[in-house]
């Protein structure tokens, strides 16, 4: 439950929404329990339910269309080959405080944020793919790009 709430809190960016999401996920899990296939990954199943609840909520509040469009576009952006910040970037990462990390995380798209959080929870690429509903290869590139963005964001905060 703590892990689900942690995921929900950073995914939604709101303490109130996080509680609603966890409650909604529990309610959906209860309703869907008879269809759960034993032998498959229950933890990943619960996280997928919560993420789906998050997406449904965003659709209901009509915040999703513009974001989804920009997220789809950002999927296509290849790695930028601009020079890294080098020592400045390293110092920024070392000096980043909790508020910086939370701010950088919240600046990512919801999909990017999700893969970073799920990776931190210890899910494998295959499990993350199952949760977010995409191919494992997509998870790898999405996670890599998200981490790239996080590094640049954290470096900018400290400049």
């Amino acid at each position, binding site marked *: *439950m*703590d*892990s*689900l*709430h*942690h995921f929900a*809190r*950073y995914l939604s960016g709101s*303490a109130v929404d*996080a*509680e609603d999401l*966890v*409650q909604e996920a*529990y309610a959906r*899990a*209860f309703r869907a*329990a*008879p269809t*759960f296939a*034993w032998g498959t990954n*229950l933890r990943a199943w*619960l996280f997928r339910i919560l993420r789906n609840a998050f997406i449904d909520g965003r659709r209901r509040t009509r915040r999703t269309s513009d974001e989804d469009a920009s997220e789809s576009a950002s999927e296509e952006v*290849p*790695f930028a*080959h601009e*020079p*890294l910040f*080098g020592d400045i*970037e*390293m110092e920024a*990462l*070392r000096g*980043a*405080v*909790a508020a910086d*990390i*939370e701010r950088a*995380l919240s600046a990512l798209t919801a999909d990017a944020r999700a893969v*970073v959080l799920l990776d*931190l929870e210890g899910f494998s*690429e295959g499990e993350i793919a199952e949760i977010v509903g995409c191919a494992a290869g997509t998870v*790898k*590139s999405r*996670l*890599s790009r998200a*981490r*790239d963005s*996080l*590094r640049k964001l*954290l470096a900018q905060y400290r400049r």
Partner: protein
Amino acid sequence: MDCMETRTNLLAGRRGLLSPQEAASLQEHLRGCELCTRADAADIELSRTLSRLPRRDAPQALKRRLESRWAPRERRWPRRVGQVVAVAGVGLAVAAGATLFLGARERSDAMVTEAVNDHLRVLYSEHPVEVESGGIHQVKPWFAGRVDFAPSVAFAGDQDFPLKGGSVAYFMDRKAATFIYGHRLHTITLFVFRADGLPWPPADGEPVGSQRVYVRDDRGFHVLMWRHGDLGYALVSDTSPTDLRELAGRLATPGTGSESPRTP
């Protein structure tokens, strides 16, 4: 492997998730590409940075609410539904003391194990202290907004047991204010946390200061735990039991430091 593919595979490479051929190709590219080598170093540092992302555990009120509604009860649901909800509610069970399966001693042993594990995290941490000590009046206010209680500590540190600083950790399912003391070459960690809902040992503690203190050993570490008012305390170190009792006596006795513990 080009730069783009290398960057995509850096994390998987460090985790040993690539095939031997992919790993060799990655290493070959890194040897010849300064930018990707620097990106790899920065990505390693990012992992350390992300480990400092604060945990946002479920509030106790939410746990209680969900527990009252979804906790598995005998014959309430069909077997499969009950199993799913039981697994989903593992966190709830821990928070509630896992009373179904464990005896009182075993449950309190879980607290001892947790205290030692948390102490080990302090020892292993590159940055065990998030706020350097300039005295208890500098450390205590730092916790405001970081934990959902006011950590009450009766001992401000002295020459024998200097207060090095503080940080926020997790004890079982809740946040803990962590005070780190030194004693010669030993590190002593004091965890202060909300005491409610934890599987405390039966009231067989020995008197230390003005408290009844539970004394346990685990993996070569000595653990002293006690409750005062709403708060719980766990003191952990590999220093001698006598020295640890001495510090516990100062911590558990009002008036030996800068502040008195609040009234129960």
